[in-house]
């Protein structure tokens, strides 16, 4: 039997699982999906050992929004510091970079609050060290997502340049300008960025490893359009 026809041999509850996954991508609210999960667990003991629960829609939206902003902010930071001399484009990029940083800081504060008040979906069975590694790296990422914009912000104010969010609101100076502090914050900002880049690569590698090698549904907890039930 060819793989192309595999879905025809699928039991009806799996098809309905796809059906519900489809609606979940359209933004069908959380409780409908949860109700389905309960039903499916009740009717089939044979369901794949993969986990069924997702992060909340709020957590998923914030995760991907912040991911996009981090990617944009990091790239822009890289490009703008490579532009030699002084050009209008360079100054424009500096302003955008700062606005992105402030936005990330704001959304990560929301994420931390949400994370503290909402239990994340359970992990599938995995070795203890992996569980710990996941917890430590997630905690560190949260810390870095707050510290990196903060270090950049302080770097700007140490250099005597206020941050004017979206060119509209001048944000409070937390410190007084000081050329000696400028370099400290600058290298903290850069050092933490490379730390985070390394962690993000590990984060992505782990997510892809779980999805394509382990096929344990870990990635689907954070990706709305992925089927929650992967072949086991």
């Amino acid at each position, binding site marked *: 039997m060819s793989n192309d026809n595999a879905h025809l041999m699928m039991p009806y509850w799996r098809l309905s699982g796809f059906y519900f996954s489809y609606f979940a991508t359209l933004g069908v609210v959380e409780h409908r999906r949860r109700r389905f999960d309960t039903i499916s667990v009740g009717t089939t003991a044979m369901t794949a050992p993969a986990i069924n629960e997702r992060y909340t829609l709020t957590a998923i939206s914030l995760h991907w929004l912040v991911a996009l902003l981090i990617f944009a902010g990091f790239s822009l930071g890289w490009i703008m510091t490579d532009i030699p*001399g*002084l*050009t*209008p484009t360079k*100054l*424009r990029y500096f*302003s955008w970079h700062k606005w992105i940083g402030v936005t990330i800081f704001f959304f990560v504060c929301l994420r931390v609050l949400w994370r503290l008040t909402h239990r994340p979906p359970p992990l599938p069975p995995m070795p203890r060290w992996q569980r710990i590694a996941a917890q430590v790296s997630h905690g560190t990422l949260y810390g870095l997502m707050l510290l990196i914009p903060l270090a950049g912000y302080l770097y700007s104010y140490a*250099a*005597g*340049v*206020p*941050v*004017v969010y979206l*060119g*509209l609101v*001048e944000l409070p100076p937390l410190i007084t*300008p000081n*050329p000696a502090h400028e370099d400290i914050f600058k290298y903290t900002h850069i050092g933490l960025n490379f730390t985070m880049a390394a962690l993000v690569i590990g984060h992505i590698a782990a997510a892809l490893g779980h999805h394509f090698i382990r096929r344990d549904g870990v990635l689907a907890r954070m990706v709305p359009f992925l089927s929650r039930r992967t072949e086991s």
Partner: protein
Amino acid sequence: MRIIRWAVVPIALAAMAAWAQTPTANPGTISFVAKQMNVPIKGQFKQFSAQIQFDPARPAAGKAAVEIDVASLDLGDKEFNYEMNTKTWLDTRTYPKATFISSAIKAIAPDRLEVSGKLTIKGKTLDVAVPVTLKTEGRTRVFEGTLPIRRTTFNIGEDEWRDTSVVADEVQIRFHLIAAPQ
């Protein structure tokens, strides 16, 4: 050695003359604020001289002359300072001095003056009227105020910088000049 020693004398005399011309040891400050996408960028001129003759009883007889050493500009960043000296911005090699020479002083109130005169920056001269606040602190007089200028009028920021969407056209020049009693 002998030549060097003799050269020192006129330099020292010139320095003493310059010292005598400055009103006090602390002549005050001349700074400016430009806006880059609404971000205030502050800078100051570390070297300038100001000669002010002013008698409150006869303000119209007063005179003021300010000469700024443009290359002494400090934006608080080495790279930016370097850029400001280039041809695109202030071209300090061709135009090392910026000056203001008063032509008329008018008293508007006991502590407010309007000083008209010629402002020269980057080789371009413009007639301006500067609002000045007069303060008497002990035996010294302080003249302070803000003069908004349009940088493009003086060709400050050429080529791609003529576009004022990143660096605004208006630049505020702020002065706080301290004059010793005469």
